[in-house]
């Protein structure tokens, strides 16, 4: 991965902000980099044209909130998933996108989607504790992985597409061989989960998984130090795993990537950047923050405060633009470079 010209996270700044009707839950850039799609606290999917912020509403695909978005490899189709358990395919560039196909994917929420690097497979995870793999082209079910005991919070393919990773509420992080449809390994990410006896609640979960472009490292993000889960008192945490270590020791995190001074935060999304560092989006009572770590250091080396609390993030194919989905009904674009003169 080539570091884009002008890339400098310490010069990050917001370049655009566009208004939506409801608080946003999710956002993704399309592979062509022309659009950003978003899901919100309603049944609509929003599409923003990056060139000028023109918004197009896509209706009829869902009954309630949209939580996850993915694309076909060529970007011609967008796929949304929601709390109605459905996945809906859209013609991404149509003047008025209509649902092309809707599939009943999970019993309860679909929390997460990811498309394989070759674009043929779509993975989903949801509240029925299942991980499912679908044919991206026609929406047919190909595989089902069902050993999670609690809600599946996140799924991610590795760069080869041979393996799929899934994480759940309790910090169970599993590696699946997709073709063989079997579990390969289970990693210990339980630092991202806690049970609070006083409040009698399970809390945390693997909110994000990201594998480095070379396939060596996996980061899993969420929260820890949840002294008051019901009151939003918890700190962001990222666990770094070495996927090349095939021993028992390799099932444990190599390092915890932490922050200081963020008493209310949770990692909603992680992305690997071109310079080999890791970018995380933290949302919580401390506000919306883009956090930056080097894999070989425990503490973040930089943080960028967003104008308000954010719940999802994506990195543009150009490696410079970052989209963030905000509670204040805005989609914001941040540029990881100096301001243009």
């Amino acid at each position, binding site marked *: 991965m080539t570091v884009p010209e002008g890339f400098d996270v310490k010069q990050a700044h917001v370049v655009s902000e566009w208004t939506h009707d409801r*608080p946003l839950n999710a956002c993704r850039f399309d592979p062509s980099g022309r659009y950003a799609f978003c899901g919100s606290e309603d049944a609509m999917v929003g599409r923003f044209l990056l060139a000028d912020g023109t918004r197009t509403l896509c209706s009829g695909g869902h009954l*309630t909130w949209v939580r996850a978005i993915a694309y076909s490899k060529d970007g011609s189709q967008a796929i949304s998933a929601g*709390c109605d358990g459905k996945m809906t395919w859209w013609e991404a560039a149509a003047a008025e996108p209509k649902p092309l196909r809707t599939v009943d994917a999970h019993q309860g929420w679909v929390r997460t989607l990811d498309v394989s690097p070759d674009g043929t497979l779509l993975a989903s995870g949801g509240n029925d504790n299942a991980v499912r793999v679908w044919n991206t082209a026609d929406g047919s079910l190909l595989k089902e992985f069902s050993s999670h005991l609690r809600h599946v919070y996140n799924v991610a393919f590795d760069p080869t597409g041979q393996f799929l990773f899934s994480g759940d509420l309790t910090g169970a992080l599993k590696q699946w061989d997709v073709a063989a449809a079997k579990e390969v390994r289970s990693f210990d990410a339980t630092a991202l989960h806690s049970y609070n006896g006083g409040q*009698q609640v399970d809390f945390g979960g693997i909110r994000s998984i990201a594998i480095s472009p070379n396939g060596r490292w996996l980061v899993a993000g969420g929260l820890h130090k949840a002294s008051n*889960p*019901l009151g*939003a008192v918890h700190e962001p945490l990222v666990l770094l795993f070495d996927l090349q270590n095939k021993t028992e020791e390799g099932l444990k995190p190599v390092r915890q990537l932490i922050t200081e001074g963020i008493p209310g935060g949770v990692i909603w999304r992680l992305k690997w950047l071109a310079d080999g560092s890791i970018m995380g989006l933290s949302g919580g*009572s401390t506000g919306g923050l883009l956090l930056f770590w080097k894999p070989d250091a425990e503490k973040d080396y930089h943080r960028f405060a967003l104008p308000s609390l954010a719940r999802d993030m994506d990195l543009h194919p150009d490696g410079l633009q970052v989209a963030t989905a905000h*509670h204040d009904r805005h989609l914001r674009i941040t540029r990881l470079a100096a301001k243009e003169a």
Partner: protein
Amino acid sequence: MQIKYACQSIEHGMARRQFLGTAAAVTGGLVAGGLGVFSQRAVAGQLKSDQKRIVVFNMHGGLSQLESWDPKPGTDTGGPFLAIPTSVPGIHISELLPLTAQQMHHLCLARGVNTSEDDHGKGAYMMLTGRRQTPAANFPQLGAVAAKSLTPSDSSLPGHIVITPGGAGGRGNDSAYLGPMYSSVSLGNGNPPQNTARPDTIAEASDAARQDFRRKINERFLNRRRTAVTEAFAYSFEQAEQLMRQRDVFDVTKEPASDVERYGTHDFGRHCLLARRLLEQGITFVQLSHSNYDTHNENFNFHIEQMGEFDRSFSCFVADLAERGLLDSTLIVVLSEFGRTPNINLYYGRDHWSRAWSVCLAGCRIPRGAVYGSTNENGTEVTDGQVDHGSLFHTYLQAAGVDSTGSFDIEGREMPIADPSTGAVAQLLS
């Protein structure tokens, strides 16, 4: 607090004296022997009587009405969950309660609750006593009032049981001027009352001799100095002895394994099964709680988990009571200290909201398969059928056959059973 025997007070007349009189008749005048002489026969017979019972499910922390009894899908406040049809055409509840939805024909929803109090402690006090908390007075909780008003005089079991999520147990401080006889016996995490197993080091015969000696000494003392305090003291001993003899009443492990599985193997499932057992054994009032609904953060994730537990156990409980013919004599109340804000905050949470929320009722005189009251489109205000803690308190009692407009005679002072400034909700009584 002195008991004036000459006053013929209702309190003394209705409870302790009848109880002691019965005891005396059975024992040939062993007055201080009191509770100790009752047998299981009396307990078994209660179920066949017309005794009314009450069970309260306290949804601790503030259950969201929008994720339970009054969903508003598709609105800006509705959240991500859908509404589902129930066994009663036209009534929809949250999709988080699919099993309870199948029992809707037994239930009644009060959707217009407005208590105007967003503080946990004050809200809980209001919902359990039917009155606002004031520095000038303390009022007995529903369990104490029910125990005093509904427990048969010959009952050998406590009338007021609270099953707590944890803790060791003991006695509650919830009966106010009704006195310690009606304060709750707490079953910590659903375990039998504390210290009710006779130590192995004390033989049964030795224990009986010890109790007889205590009664004689006690009787001698009471003949000269009888007060409410000594009454309560003696009662505690007698009740403790009865609890030891009837420890099995509180032992939920005696219930069939199939029922344990059906109710759910989590604590709340076990507590619901215990509540069924206690009610079947003739306990007048049982309160259990389910935690924790104070979801300022990630309200939806937490309600998925909590409602899932509640739905399974509660639906089994309602179905069982109906099937066993106990619903006509058992009032079910699902309450909370308040509801939760229609507004969804930054952290996917909902905060405290007492202006428009819901209570679920069933049994006794409560109409079946009904909804009373409504809120506006996005659930921010009551639009019809507004009720509050006071009117609901009257309603609970009248549903169970207690004239809530009456008074207790406490040392010659009339204490209204429920807030006299309000009354029962007629539409919630059939």
